[in-house]
C-alpha cells in the first residue's frame, strides 16, 4: 500500500510533464489542424538551453528565463520556417515537414553536444519531505504545482482575456476570424510561441528527474501524443487527464511488470484506446462534412 501511494505520487509527477507537452500539441492542433511532431524536441532543446545557461554561471532563475526566451524564439522560427510556408497545403506535407524539423533539432543538438547525457540540478536545495509513508520529492512537487498553476492560467487566458478569445476564434474558423479583423497569422504565431514555451517548461521541469539526453524529446512526445488520444483528441481537459493517467499507468507498469519495457506501456495503452475507444474519454471532433 505504501509503495502504491509512492508510485501514485511519482506517476502524477511524470504525468504532469506529459500533460504540459500534450497541451502544446492540442493548442497547435486546434489553431492549425496539424500535429506538430517536433513538440517533444521543444522540451529537449529547452533542457539543453538550461544546462548551457547554468554552466555559463547564470543563477538558476536567470537561466530559466533565458531558456524560456530561447524557446519563444524557437517557436517563432519554427512557425516561419516549417509551418507557415506550407499552411495552404494538406496535412500530410505539414506532418512530414514537422518530422523533418524534429530530426533536424534532435541531431543538431547531438552534433553540437555529443551523445553524453547531461545532468541538470534541481531547483531546490532540500531534496524532499516525508509525509507519513510517502516521500515527496521536491522536484515532483514543483512539477505538479506548476502544472496546476498553468491549467488555471490557461483557463483564465482562453476564457477571460480578449487575446485568448481571439485565439479561440482563429482555431475554430480562420476565415470568419479574419473577416472580423483578427490577424490570423499573428494568432498562429502566438500559438506556436506559446506551445514552444509550454513544451520548454515541461522539459526544464522534468530534466532534473531524468537525464538530459537527445532521446528525451521523442520519448516525451510519444507519450504526450498517447495522452491526447486517451483524453480525446483536440480536447484541453482530455490532454491533461490523459497525461496524468498515462504517467500513473507507466509508473505502476514499471514497478510491477517490467522496467526495460517501461516506454512500451504507452504504446499498448494507445493501441487499446485506438481499437476500443478511438474518440478518447472526452470524445472527438466530428468527421468531415460532405
Amino acid at each position, binding site marked *: 500500500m505504501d509503495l502504491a501511494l509512492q508510485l501514485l505520487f511519482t506517476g502524477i509527477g511524470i504525468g504532469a510533464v506529459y500533460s504540459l507537452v500534450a497541451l502544446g500539441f492540442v493548442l497547435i*492542433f486546434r489553431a492549425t489542424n*496539424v*500535429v506538430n*511532431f517536433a513538440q517533444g524536441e521543444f522540451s529537449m532543446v529547452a533542457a539543453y538551453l538550461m544546462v548551457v545557461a547554468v554552466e555559463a554561471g547564470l543563477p538558476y532563475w536567470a537561466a530559466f528565463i533565458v531558456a524560456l526566451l530561447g524557446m519563444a524564439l524557437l517557436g517563432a522560427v519554427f512557425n516561419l*520556417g*516549417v509551418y507557415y*510556408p*506550407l499552411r495552404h*497545403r494538406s*496535412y*500530410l*506535407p505539414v*506532418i*512530414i*515537414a514537422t*518530422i*523533418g*524539423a*524534429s*530530426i*533536424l*533539432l*534532435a*541531431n*543538431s*543538438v*547531438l*552534433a553540437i553536444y*555529443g*551523445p553524453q547525457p547531461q545532468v541538470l540540478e534541481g531547483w531546490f536545495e532540500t531534496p524532499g519531505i516525508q509525509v507519513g509513508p510517502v516521500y515527496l520529492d521536491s522536484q515532483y512537487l514543483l512539477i505538479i504545482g506548476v502544472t496546476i498553476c498553468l491549467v488555471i492560467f490557461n483557463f483564465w487566458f482562453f476564457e477571460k482575456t480578449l487575446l485568448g478569445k481571439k485565439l479561440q476564434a482563429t482555431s475554430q474558423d480562420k476565415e470568419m476570424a479574419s473577416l472580423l479583423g483578427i490577424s490570423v497569422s499573428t494568432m498562429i504565431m502566438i500559438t506556436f510561441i506559446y506551445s514552444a514555451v509550454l513544451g520548454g517548461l515541461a522539459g526544464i521541469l522534468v530534466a532534473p528527474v531524468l537525464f538530459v539526453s*537527445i532521446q528525451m524529446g*521523442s520519448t516525451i512526445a*510519444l507519450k504526450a*501524443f*498517447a495522452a491526447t*488520444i486517451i483524453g480525446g*483528441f483536440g480536447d484541453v481537459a482530455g490532454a491533461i487527464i490523459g497525461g496524468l493517467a498515462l504517467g500513473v499507468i507507466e509508473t505502476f507498469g514499471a514497478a510491477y511488470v517490467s522496467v*526495460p*519495457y517501461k*516506454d*512500451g506501456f*504507452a*504504446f499498448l495503452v*494507445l*493501441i487499446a484506446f*485506438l*481499437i476500443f475507444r*478511438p474518440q478518447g474519454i472526452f470524445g472527438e471532433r*466530428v468527421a*468531415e462534412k*460532405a
Partner: protein
Amino acid sequence: MSAPSDNMPIPAPAIRSKPLVVRHLPYFIGAAILVVLAANMNFDGYVHNILLQATTFAIAVFGLSVVLGLCGQINLAQAAFFGLGAYAVGMGTTDLQLSFWLCLVGGCLISLLAGAFLGMSTLRLGGHYLAMVTISFQQIVTLVMINAIWLTRGPDGVPNIKRPDLFQSSQSYLAFCVAMLAIVGYLVWHLSDTKLGRAMRAVRDNELAAGVNGIDVFRTKIYAFALCALLGGLAGGLFAGGFAYVSPDQFSFAESIVFLTMSLLGGVASPIGSAIGTGLLILIPEWLRFLKSVPGLYLAIYGLFVILIIRFMPDGIWGFVADAFTRWRAKLPAPPVAGALHLKPAMTGGDIVLEVIGLSKHFGGLKAVDGVDIAVKRGGVHALIGPNGSGKTTTLNVLSGLYVATSGRIVLDGTDITHMPPHQRTASGLGRTFQNIRLFRSMTALENVEIGAERPGNTMVGKGDDALTERAMEALTFVGLGSRANELISSFSYGHQRLIEIARALASNPTLLLLDEPAAGLNSTEKLELHELLKRIAAQGLTILIIDHDMTLVSEAAQHITVLNFGRRIADGESMAVLRHPDVVSAYLGSE
C-alpha cells in the same frame, strides 16, 4: 457541354490493346541485362556492399511509394518492418537452422501481419494517428530487439547469417537481389493501373468520393499499408542474407527517416523515383563520409532535406519528369468510342425504387432530419426541395451512407441498405454526385470515370481493362467530353467538372442516381444543357433523385416533388400541385 451530335455512335473498332507482357518487354530486357551484369562484373568488396545495400533498401522504399505515394498514408516504421524481415532470416537460419527461403517467406508474413494489425487498429482514424502509432511501433520493435536478449541476442546482434545454397557467392547473391528488385519494381509500377491501384489513388485524392464510388476505403488503406510492410520485410530478409550480420541499430527510427527521405527525394508517386532517391541517398553519404565523423550531423542534414524537399520539390526529382509525361499524355487522342452509353438499371424490386421510412438524423439536440418518408417511383425524376437548412443535403448524406441514420429505414430496389457503409450501398446500385465537386484531382477525366465503371456489381462492363476504358469513354461521350478524356481534372471548367462527376456515376450503371444541387454555380446556358442531359438520362429509364434550388429546373425536370422544412416533410406529390401548396409557398416566401 454536349452537342446532340456527340451522342451519335461513332463507328470505330472496339479497343484492343496489345498484351501487357509485349508492351512491357523493354523493361524485362533491361532488367535481364542488369541481372547479368550484376552476376558477371567483378566489383571490389566496397562497391559490392554499396550495391547490395542500395538494392535491398530500394525494395523497402518501393513499399513507401505504395503507401505514401499511391494511397497517401504515412508509415514511419518502415525500418521496423525491414528489421522484422531481417531478424526472421537472421535468427531463423542461425538459431533455428531453417532454410533461407522458409525464413524469407516467414519474415515477409510476419511483417505483413504486423502491418495489417497496425493498419486495422489505426486506419479508420486521421493521418496524425497513423504517424504517431507507426513511430510508437518503431520504438517498441527497437526496444524488443535490444532488451529481449534470450530471443534476439540483444545489442550484440546476430552474426553468421546464412544464404541460400543456390546463391552462395556474394556475386550471385547480388544478381539474385537485383532480379528481386526488378520483379518488385515491375509489380509496384504496374500496380497503379490495376483496380487496387486505382482504388488507392482514389482514396488518396478524396476519401469520401472513393467511398460513394464503391471503393472500400478502409480495406484499401489496409492493403496499401500491409503491402508496404511486406515489401519492408522482404527487403530486410534480403539485406540480412547479404550482409550476414544484423543488429538493432540498423533498424532504428533514424533508419525509418532515411527511408522516408529517400522516398521523398526521388518522388513518392513512382517506383522509379524510389530507386533514384535510394541510389542518391546511399551514394551521397558515401561521398560525404567526413560528415559521419560528427555524430548526428548527417541525420540533421537529412532532417533539413526533408523540410526543403517538402517545401520546394513536393513531387521529388522524378516529379519533374512525370509532370512532362502528364502534359504529353493530355495531348494524346482519346481512345475511340465504340458505341453509345447504355443504362440498364436493375429492376429487382417493385414499382418503388427507393423507399425511405421514418428517416431521422439528429446531431446532439438538433433534429436535422426528423421522421421523413420518401417514395421514389421507378423511371422518373423525383426532386427533394426545401429552403436552406431544411435537411436536404443531410438526407442525401444519410441515403448514401456518409452519415449514420439515427432511426428509420432505407430500402433500395428491394434491399435494405440502412446499415451498409457507403461502398456497399454503391455496390447495391446507388450513384451520387456532390454539391461541392469531389473528383480525384490527380487523375485524368477518363481515370475518374473508370473508377465509377469499376463499381462492384456493374453488369454493363465486360472483363478486363479494355472493356473498362470502353465503358468510361461511352459515359464521357454521353456528357459531351469524350474528346478530352486524357486531360487532368484541373484543366476542366467548373461546369465540365460537374459533368465528369455525372459521367462517373453513370458509368457505374446505377439503379438510382442522386444528384446534389447539380445546377449550383452553372450559368444559364449550362443549366439548359444540364436539363437536356437529365432528359436523356431519364429517357433510358434511370431513376433520378435530385436536390436543387433552381425552381425552373426542378419544376420542368421533375414529375414528383418532396418538400422538407426544418427537417420534416411538409408536402409530397405531383410537381405542379406541390409547388402551389400553401405550406410550400409560405416556407419559401414566408407567410403573412
